[in-house]
């Protein structure tokens, strides 16, 4: 009988406990859910920030690595460049394209993406930056222009006749001809002797108005050196292109004596035009060829089998000396204070040829990609 009484008893402890557990469980679940939501919201904010920073990095990378020739190859109002994707570490990358808006203004559009483990995008952000090419401006008055004393002797040749470098003809390089210029423009004394040759239109031109303030045209030497992309720290013995072993091979612009590859149209360095600057006297010896703009804040001494394609500017004197069977050749022109073009051996030559094509390519190719000074950064939606 006792057992049957117990079986018949009805309590409410279990019901109360279950009720309490349900209520408490619901509250805990709600708290957990809202906390989880907050955590996810915070994570999304982080992903968005990472994507935005990746987009910025894509812009910076574009400004730092895009060369002037690649920009100039784009058509105004035409299709943008091929997309370039930069990996920025684990699960973050940026893809950029460049459009040419006008002859001198370009838009870099960069989309940064934060991905999950399998690679699906978690957040993307797009920004743009308006950039332009800052191209040095130079007034090339002739093959050679100098203030002070000019000596052309030995077998040296100076020409103001517009000359296209032979290898560039038919290599896809546009070289519209320009008017010939004077062979030598000077404000000082010009001495010519030996078997030297000066040609041009006219061959020799005295310009008493030329002075250090206007010799380069609208651009000052200090402005040019501020655009330098290759700062030399010592004299140079031998110049030539440096190509990395990567696939595809790229031009290694960090090498001091890599001044481009003007004589090899297939080289990755063929379109590399550094603005080369050296403070103090600079000696170039050995052999090789380079291109760009050579700026020397001091005296420039060149000796050996050296060719240079583009303007050469020295605030001091320029001494060019052929050595027997070797040649020193300049396609572009020389601007300096005093110039000595000498060739002590009969079989050697020191040659300066005015070349509008070499100068134009060097000036355009050495243009620096820079953000617009004002309002260049654009939030894209």
């Amino acid at each position, binding site marked *: 009988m006792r057992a049957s009484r117990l079986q018949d008893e009805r309590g409410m402890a279990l019901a109360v406990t279950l009720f309490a557990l349900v209520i408490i469980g619901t*509250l805990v679940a709600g708290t957990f859910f809202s906390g989880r939501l*907050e955590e996810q919201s915070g994570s999304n904010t982080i992903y968005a920030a990472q994507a935005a920073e990746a987009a910025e990095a894509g812009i910076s990378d574009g400004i730092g690595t895009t060369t002037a020739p690649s920009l100039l190859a784009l058509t105004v109002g035409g299709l943008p460049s091929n997309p370039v994707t930069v990996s920025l570490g684990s699960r973050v990358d940026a893809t950029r394209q460049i459009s040419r808006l006008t002859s*001198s203004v370009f838009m870099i559009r960069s989309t940064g993406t934060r991905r999950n483990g399998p690679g699906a995008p978690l957040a993307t952000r797009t920004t743009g930056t308006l950039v332009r090419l800052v*191209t040095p401006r130079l007034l090339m008055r002739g093959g050679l222009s100098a203030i002070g004393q000019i000596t052309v002797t030995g077998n040296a040749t100076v020409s103001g006749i517009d000359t296209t470098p032979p290898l560039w003809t038919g290599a896809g390089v546009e070289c519209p001809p320009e008017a010939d210029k004077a062979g030598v423009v000077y404000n000082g004394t010009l001495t010519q002797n030996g078997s030297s040759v000066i040609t041009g239109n006219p061959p020799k031109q005295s310009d008493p108005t030329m002075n250090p303030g206007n010799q380069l045209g609208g651009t000052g030497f200090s402005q040019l050196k501020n655009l330098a992309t290759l700062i030399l720290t010592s004299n140079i013995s031998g110049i030539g292109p440096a190509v990395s072993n990567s696939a595809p091979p790229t031009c290694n612009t960090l090498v001091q004596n890599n001044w481009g590859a003007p004589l090899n149209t297939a080289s990755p360095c063929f379109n590399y035009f550094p603005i080369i600057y050296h403070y103090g006297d600079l000696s170039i010896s050995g052999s090789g060829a380079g291109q760009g703009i050579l700026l020397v804040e001091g005296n420039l001494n060149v000796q050996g089998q050296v060719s240079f394609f583009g303007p050469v500017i020295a605030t001091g004197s320029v001494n060019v000396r052929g050595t027997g069977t070797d040649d020193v050749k300049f396609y572009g022109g020389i601007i300096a204070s005093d110039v000595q073009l000498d060739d002590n051996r009969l079989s050697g030559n020191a040659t300066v040829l005015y070349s509008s094509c070499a100068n134009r390519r060097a000036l355009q190719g050495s243009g620096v990609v820079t953000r617009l000074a004002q309002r260049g*950064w654009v939030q894209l*939606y």
Partner: protein
Amino acid sequence: MASRRGFTLIEVMISLVIMLMVMGAVYKLILSSQRLAREQAERVNLQSNVRIGSLAVLADLRELNTATGESAGNNDILAKDVSSITYRAMRGAGYICQAPTATQVRISRISFSGYRDPLATRDSLYVFYDGDPDTETDDTWLPVAITAVSTATACPAGAGITLTTSNKDSLVGLASGTPVRFFEVMELKLHQADGSSWLGARSVSAGEAVQPVLGPLVNDSGFVLKYLNAAGAETADRTAIKSILVTLRGISEGAVNVGIGGAPTRVQDSLVSQIMLRNSFRP
């Protein structure tokens, strides 16, 4: 049936007391859990509020242009103090799709990217003026008032947006592809309404009144701006500002019991963010 006996009074009373104690404990537990849940929800709302507000403020200030020594047109911060800022807020960008006249600029729809379409009177236009394409020294942005907008127009290569502008002779001759940007003048400030502090915003160029957009914030110190120059030092010179330190201090809408047995109080949270002005990279 007659042999069965019921509970005695003592048994019933003891049962009732035990049940009351259990129910009291359960009630207390539920109450604590409920308070915790409410506090958590308030904190989540508060943090979301502050974070969203911070993101919105930073996004609006990020594109500001400042430049020491430049004209007023190149300095987008028009007025500032510790709890308010008036500035040109960029709202979109695009490219001209055909040569403009002195009173008309047409933007390619394909190139256009904006927060919204331009609005007459409320928005103004900046048109890039290249001058000599071989030099950057004469580059500038021409400010132009927008008097009418038509979005049902066409460019040579697709849809376009036609902006009728105030007369500006210097627009004539600009090339197709020239970049443009449009903006409105905005004010952000700590705003008092309904006895609370809010982040208030208004379009100055549209003549709007300040509207609360986020809050509530802590009175007096809910929205604090600190203006820094290139060296990271605080500056009073609007043209020298390179970054802005934005502090948002939010406060919960309702009072919550913090911890077990804590007195009801409104919880606070803050977020400090520093935004570098992207168009002020030059010294």
